[in-house]
């Protein structure tokens, strides 16, 4: 990072001294800096995406070569009950995950901004995010175990019936959503906290002079001015949320029955367990399209690229 920053700065300073030198030499330098990212983008994103798009029109079982079958995979997907089930399950997860995560994160961000000013406390909020996904999943898997988990032990002491957090069709998705809320809310709060810090203090001072209460200030000042950051956070977390995989793979593996078979897990199982790569690619393309539309709608309706400060 340090090595890229220093020449970048000297370049930025160069035009001020010799404005005529702009043009070709800048392009060459720019290419030098852009090339690594472009190569990475082409090798790891563009090529696999195009290949995936191609494979989605084929029958490909990993061994042997892909056979072109046109739209057959897509037609099968439309009729595939498990696909629609996966979409519904993923939808339920995203709604629960994003709703709770965003509300908790906003609450935490406000606390960080107004109350918890110590770096240590702010750092602690980030701790769950620093633990690997799989470890977090395993940790909660054991703590929430029906037979020997500590949470169920406590529930029993309280005189309540034990809950099959991962085994029951009703609880599996909310449980998994909760685990990821717990893991991600500190990080999301940090992003929102940065957004809060970017709001000019004088706006609050004026609001206070005009006699606006805390509640009114929050809705009339904080929320509108936080919107660009909030939109960014929502776009990023919603896309991440749709891609839920590891927690499910480590705990329920899609069960009970199909209650937690989220779309990414379904794609994985089609590709790597059943070796139906063509079908799995078609599912991925559909997920890609859905995420594209979701991000577009969010940007459009939440006007993420405009700011009230503007």
């Amino acid at each position, binding site marked *: 990072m340090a090595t890229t920053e220093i020449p970048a700065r000297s370049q930025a300073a160069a035009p001020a001294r010799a404005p005529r030198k702009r043009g070709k030499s800048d392009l060459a330098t720019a290419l030098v800096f852009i090339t690594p990212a472009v190569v990475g983008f082409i090798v790891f994103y563009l090529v696999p995406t195009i290949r995936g798009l191609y494979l989605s029109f084929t029958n490909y079982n*990993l061994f042997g070569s892909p056979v072109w079958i046109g739209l057959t995979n897509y037609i099968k997907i439309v009729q595939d009950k498990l696909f629609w089930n996966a979409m519904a399950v993923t939808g339920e997860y995203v709604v629960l995950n994003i709703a709770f995560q965003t509300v908790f994160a906003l609450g935490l961000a406000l606390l960080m901004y107004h109350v918890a000013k110590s770096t240590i406390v702010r750092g602690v909020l980030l701790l769950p995010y620093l633990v690997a996904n799989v470890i977090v999943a395993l940790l909660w898997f054991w703590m929430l175990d*029906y037979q020997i988990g500590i949470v169920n032990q406590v529930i029993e002491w309280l005189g309540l019936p034990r809950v099959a957090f991962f*085994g029951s069709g009703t609880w599996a998705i909310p449980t998994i959503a909760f685990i990821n809320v717990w893991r991600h809310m500190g990080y999301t709060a940090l992003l929102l906290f940065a957004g809060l810090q970017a709001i000019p203090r004088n706006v609050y001072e004026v609001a206070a002079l005009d006699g606006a209460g805390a509640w009114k200030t929050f809705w009339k000042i904080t929320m509108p001015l936080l919107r660009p950051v909030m939109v960014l956070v929502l776009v990023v977390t919603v896309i991440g949320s749709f891609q839920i995989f590891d927690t499910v793979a480590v*705990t329920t593996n899609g069960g009970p029955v199909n209650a937690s078979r989220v779309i990414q897990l379904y794609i994985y199982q089609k590709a790597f*367990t*059943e070796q139906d790569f063509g079908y799995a690619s078609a599912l991925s393309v559909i997920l890609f399209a859905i995420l594209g539309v979701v991000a577009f709608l969010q940007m459009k309706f939440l006007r993420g690229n405009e700011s009230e400060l503007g």
Partner: protein
Amino acid sequence: MKKPLATAAALAAVALSLSACGGGTPASSAGEINYWLWDANQLPAYQQCATDFHAANPELTVKITQRGWDDYWSTLTNSFVAGTAPDVFTDHLSKFPDFVARHQLLPLDDAVKNDKIDTKQFIPGLADLWVGQDGKRYGLPKDWDTVGLFYNKSMTKAAGLSDAHMAQLSWNPDDGGTYEKAIAHLTVDKNGKRGDEAGFDKTKVAVYGLGLAGSGSGQGQTEWSFLTGTTGWTHTDKNPWGSKYNYDDPKFQKTIAWWASLADKGYMPRLETTVGASVADTFGAGKAAINTNGDWMIGQYSGYKGVQVGIAPTPTGVDGKRSSMFNGLADSISAATKNPAGATKWVEYLASPQCQDVVAGKAVVFPAIKSSSELAAKAFAAKGTDVSAFTQQVKDGTTFLFPITDNAAKIDAIMKPAMDAVVSGKAPASSLTDANSQVNALFAK
């Protein structure tokens, strides 16, 4: 001389991996052999074999990698694609047809012929399981297993059930026979009332009569196949290489309905409570009196502190006889191995009395070779475990073979959720008819 040889070997390896099929004589057998297995309990035994093998063949070193069952198969499949597959690996009957269909295994016929491997030294039937539909042999048997009842002796004693009684249980799908009576009697609620007593509270069970591992997917090896096997039902139209499954048979559905009813009665945990801790650990924690499980679990069950374990054969069933699935593992060679000669040597060693006697001595599983298997029974006896419940089924000929067909992974993807739904009470057993047509449609292509 060395360089051209190495080049030839490399070329042969490239040719092998490109054509992805067997054959070809390698130039050299020196080097490292990668060997994979999934059972951690067996690792020490095979490590010993690897050490002995290296002593006899100093130019070959065997590197063993152990991975849990759940990760084993997806890692293996991906390694075939990525070209990082092990040279030799422990293979399962439900998996090898898919590998054969994709030309991932090296046929062993030449090795068996040239090195005069006596396939009759194995327990009858085991060696032939590994012959594919193309008539070629893709594995040499390493062990076999049957199913039995593990029970908590202090619980049966408290319930007044003698070991002799436990060994004489009988079952039928109508009222469950003395098998269900024993399960009911061994179930105890929080107030100390037994499952067959008035006032038994099935919502507050302290000890379940029968533990539950899972729904058993399409095979039910340790869960229900020892029951369906007595009703005259078979998984497929023929075995091996059937092309039609029979999950629509009323005999099968009735058995599953009876089994699932145990959870309703409070004699067996509900399926949703079994996600997480393993059935054996729950048994070890004193939460179940009987577990149905395979002989490879003997070590695990006898290892729980303070739990005295008895082993009984599975109950006699509708036909008046016992029944157990007879499954065997084998070692297969990956078609992409860079050292077919060395890999073949190692597989032959694994299938030899030298190695299988070592495995027998560790008393963890029953090796495939008859004489080694008898040694294992003695080794178990020396440890104080009576394994006749498992060996008796083989002696009496009451075993049936693990169903071997194509499409195993896809069948599992259909049958696991379908069986889960029935066992958890979300769908009636008759819903399996629909699952069966989905399964059979796989073979219509």
